[in-house]
């Protein structure tokens, strides 16, 4: 396997920041708010690599920095420092060095993002097919027959009844909305999917079916995924490797099985025993 | 013989103007005197002056007369007239503490330096008809004025008073005044861009349509927003206007304008730096327009507090929404323009509808 994404020393600080922010926050201080300037260190020193075709889990409670990580990688918010390198066949793209237009083009063609809240990923009043079409058009495909055909295939692939492709997702159930989001994310066949708490808030049986779908797609399309969740079951089901995050920092990383069977960091031990 | 749809538009509009003029003449004389308009229609006059954005009492009266009392139309006369005038000079910022007051109240304190001054206000009137005004004796007005003046000592200096909020500011309960070196944005000369400079936002609202400002501010007071404003100070009076002397450059008083000014104080916010403080809103406009000045202050506070708290959550907090929809000249013009011919666009709409109906019929397998 080869590396797809390399993240180096990534950090995100909300607020004006000061010299002491990094010294007085983090897991060992039990907080991510700087007591000198009040800034919040949402993410610090995050370094990891994602292999091509790999599913990497990111687990932690709210405020651990896991969702911040996703938002930085899809350019929803700016990084305070650090790098992210994306390896293409013939070149390496330094993501945060891209200008606004190239970021957008990168996001349209190389990334698929699925949010916990479908409102962030979908225009709920535009038809399911129209949502998928928007992403295809953003990548410059403006043949109507192609848009229809591709939307139909993607919805079929993600288990949305094709008969409902012209209905707005506002009328769909939560699970079905997530399927449309996944179909939209896959529209341009991106090599990387970012999944942020995509099963949170769904019924257990619906959760299981969405996870099965993700696993199936991963096996067939060999797409790399970063799966962010607070749910140990989700990483157990999907991720071969897992990062554990707390107070903005990665506290443990390793094979998912190993982390679940034999957690080394006290926080991970707490997390695992709480889930048992 | 075919029928011609549009012919003789010129003739038609000339006749329309004559019919309107006849409407004005319907009750016979006497014709309204501009001075009577200014005083007997005091509040209409003030509203038109502020929305027209031109402090010329005579032209305001003439505009009201020509517009048959329609405040939006009257304001348009003033704005159109402004477009023919070059901008010759700019005043330095004027200190409203120098205002010659005719009315001044604070709802925040029982007593304020300079005193509460109820002045002329309809606030506490009983809104009961006075039928005797239907046929008022021409000498009655003279008598009313003479009576009122007889009670006024005329050796007092013109009343001025310090600003009520200065005391709160000195105590640190309000954000400190930020001295600004930027010149005020002239909305009548420069294209507006977003984000809008505060001076431009205030200027737009100062010329804004009273009803529009009130509706948006009311939404903020009622719950689409979080304000419970306290009127820190409301003052109405004549403010001396100074211009730089063309030769010496020294400020010279060139006249005074009637102004309403309102400062509201609202619930405090957690500051990113420093202790918590009240938030404030500012409103001011030409003429005697209290509801407009209060509404403007509420919207000013709503927009600036929302900007500080990470963005608008309600329409009244969104500068894009508020500032592009409160100008009466624009909203009025656009609304009435729908009365103009739209034959071509409607033809185009019918074409699409017929086509869509034909497609629908085809899909259902029936004849169109």
């Amino acid at each position, binding site marked *: 396997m080869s590396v797809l994404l390399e993240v180096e020393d990534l950090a995100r600080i909300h607020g004006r920041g000061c010299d002491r922010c990094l010294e007085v926050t983090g897991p060992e201080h039990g907080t991510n708010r700087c007591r000198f300037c009040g800034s919040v260190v949402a993410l610090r020193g995050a370094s990891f690599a994602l292999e091509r075709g790999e599913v990497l889990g990111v687990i932690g409670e709210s405020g651990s920095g896991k969702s911040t990580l996703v938002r930085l990688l899809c350019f929803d918010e700016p990084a305070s420092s650090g790098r992210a390198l994306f390896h293409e066949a013939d070149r390496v793209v330094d993501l945060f060095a891209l200008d*606004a*237009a190239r970021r*957008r083009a990168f996001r349209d063609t190389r990334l698929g993002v699925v949010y916990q809240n479908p409102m962030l990923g979908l*225009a709920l009043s*535009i038809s399911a*097919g*129209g949502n998928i*079409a*928007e992403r295809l*058009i953003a990548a410059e495909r403006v*043949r*109507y027959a*192609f*848009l229809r055909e591709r939307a139909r295939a993607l919805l079929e692939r993600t288990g949305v009844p094709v008969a409902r492709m012209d209905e707005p997702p506002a009328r769909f159930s939560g699970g079905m909305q997530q399927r449309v989001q996944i179909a939209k994310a896959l529209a341009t066949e991106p090599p990387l999917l970012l999944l942020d708490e995509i099963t949170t808030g769904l019924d257990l049986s619906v959760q299981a079916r969405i996870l099965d779908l993700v696993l199936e797609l991963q096996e067939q399309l060999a797409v790399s995924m970063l799966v962010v969740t607070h749910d140990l079951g989700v990483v157990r089901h999907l991720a071969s490797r897992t990062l554990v995050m707390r107070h903005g920092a990665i506290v443990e990383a390793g094979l998912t099985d190993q982390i679940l069977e034999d957690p080394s960091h006290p926080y991970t031990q707490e997390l695992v025993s709480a889930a048992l | 013989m*075919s*029928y*011609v*749809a*549009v*012919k003789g*538009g*010129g003739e*038609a*509009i000339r006749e329309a103007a004559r019919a309107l003029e006849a409407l004005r003449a319907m009750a016979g004389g006497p014709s309204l005197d501009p001075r009577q308009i200014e005083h007997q229609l005091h509040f209409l006059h003030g509203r038109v002056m502020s929305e027209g954005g031109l402090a010329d009492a005579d*032209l305001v009266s003439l505009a009201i007369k020509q517009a048959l009392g329609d405040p939006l139309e009257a304001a348009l*006369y003033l*704005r*159109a007239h*402004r*477009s*023919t*005038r*070059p*901008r010759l000079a700019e005043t330095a910022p004027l200190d409203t503490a120098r205002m010659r007051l005719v009315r001044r109240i604070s709802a925040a304190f029982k007593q304020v330096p300079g005193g509460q001054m109820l002045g002329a206000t309809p606030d506490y009137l009983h809104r009961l008809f006075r039928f005797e005004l239907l046929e008022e004796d021409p000498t009655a007005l003279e008598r009313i004025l003479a009576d009122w003046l007889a009670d006024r000592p005329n050796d007092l200096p013109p009343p001025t008073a310090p600003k009520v909020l200065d005391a709160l500011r000195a105590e640190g309960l309000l954000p400190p005044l930020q001295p600004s070196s930027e010149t005020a944005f*002239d909305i*009548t*000369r420069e*294209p*507006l861009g977003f984000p809008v400079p505060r001076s431009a936002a205030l200027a737009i609202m100062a010329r804004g349509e009273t009803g529009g400002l009130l509706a948006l501010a009311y939404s903020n007071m009622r719950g689409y927003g979080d304000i419970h404003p306290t009127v820190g100070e409301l003052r109405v009076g004549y403010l001396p206007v100074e211009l730089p002397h063309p030769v010496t450059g020294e400020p010279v008083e060139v006249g005074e304008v009637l102004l309403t000014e309102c400062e509201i104080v609202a619930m405090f916010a957690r500051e990113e730096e420093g202790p918590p403080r009240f938030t404030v809103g500012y409103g001011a406009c030409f003429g005697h327009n209290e509801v407009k000045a209060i509404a403007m202050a509420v919207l000013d506070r709503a927009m600036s507090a929302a900007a500080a708290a990470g963005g608008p959550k309600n329409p009244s907090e969104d500068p*894009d929404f508020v500032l*592009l929809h409160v100008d009466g*000249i*624009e909203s009025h*013009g*656009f609304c009435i*323009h729908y009365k*103009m*011919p*739209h034959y*071509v*666009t409607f*033809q*185009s*709409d*019918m*074409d*699409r509808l017929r086509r*869509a109906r034909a*497609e629908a019929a085809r899909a259902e397998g029936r004849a*169109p």
Partner: protein
Amino acid sequence: MRQRSADALLPLGHGFGYLDEDAKRELRRAIFKAVCVPGHQTPYGSRELPIARGFGTGGLQITLALIGPEDVLKVIDQGSDDSVNAANLRRLFLATCPGVRETRRTQEASLIQTRHRIPERPLRADQILILQVPYPDPLVVVEPNESKRRLMHGRADYAKLWVKLYEGMVTFSEITISHRYPTRIAGHYVIDPSPIPRFDVPKLHRADCLYLFGAGREKRIYAVPPHTTAEPLTFEDVPFRVEDFTDPATGRRRACSRCGSTTSFLDEFFDETGARLFQCSDTAFCDEELAGRGAAA
């Protein structure tokens, strides 16, 4: 004591072209910029005029900034020189621009101010067509926030407009935009060509004349300079279609009931007896066709 008689009020007149000269200079600067960046909506300090906003104050300001005493002016609305708004604007020009000659003949005009139509006959390089614009921004139907729209234009991000076309196709098997058809200028900016019918959109493409668009209320000026591409947004496999004047009864294209033209944009209306009639919307064109037919007979 303030006492001003009617006489004292009178000298408050205006110069040639109504606006003060500073205003005209700023307008000309905005026009130059608009011509230099085809399709870009250039903001300007729009002035109020003695007609209401929405009645053509944007077009009027462009015309007043460009017009000189030697100009020959044509004013049309709905294709007609005689509709109420055209007549009213013409009256204003004649009163405020002494020396300017008016014409109804398209070929004679150096400046043409119009609302909702482009004349049938192609315009020459020495003619300028000035269109009145109610909504300058084609993105307003998909994004109400002005700041976001500006970013979208900068990036030429028009995916949401195509989605609107897609949704029309899904619902009605047709692109449902009737007029104000979004049109891409010189391969980048998409403009709202003002409420002209789709029939007139192809006239913008690589034309000899200069097209100027003025929105008074929304304070924007934009341009389609001569010989610039103007492509209506559509799908590669769904043709852009102009208004269809085929008579379903006969299958033939309807003709103007007055001059007999079968190529012009037609107004549809009812006469006193309730019978349906079709006539050229461009009345000057219709008059010429009629005269030509008379001469030929």
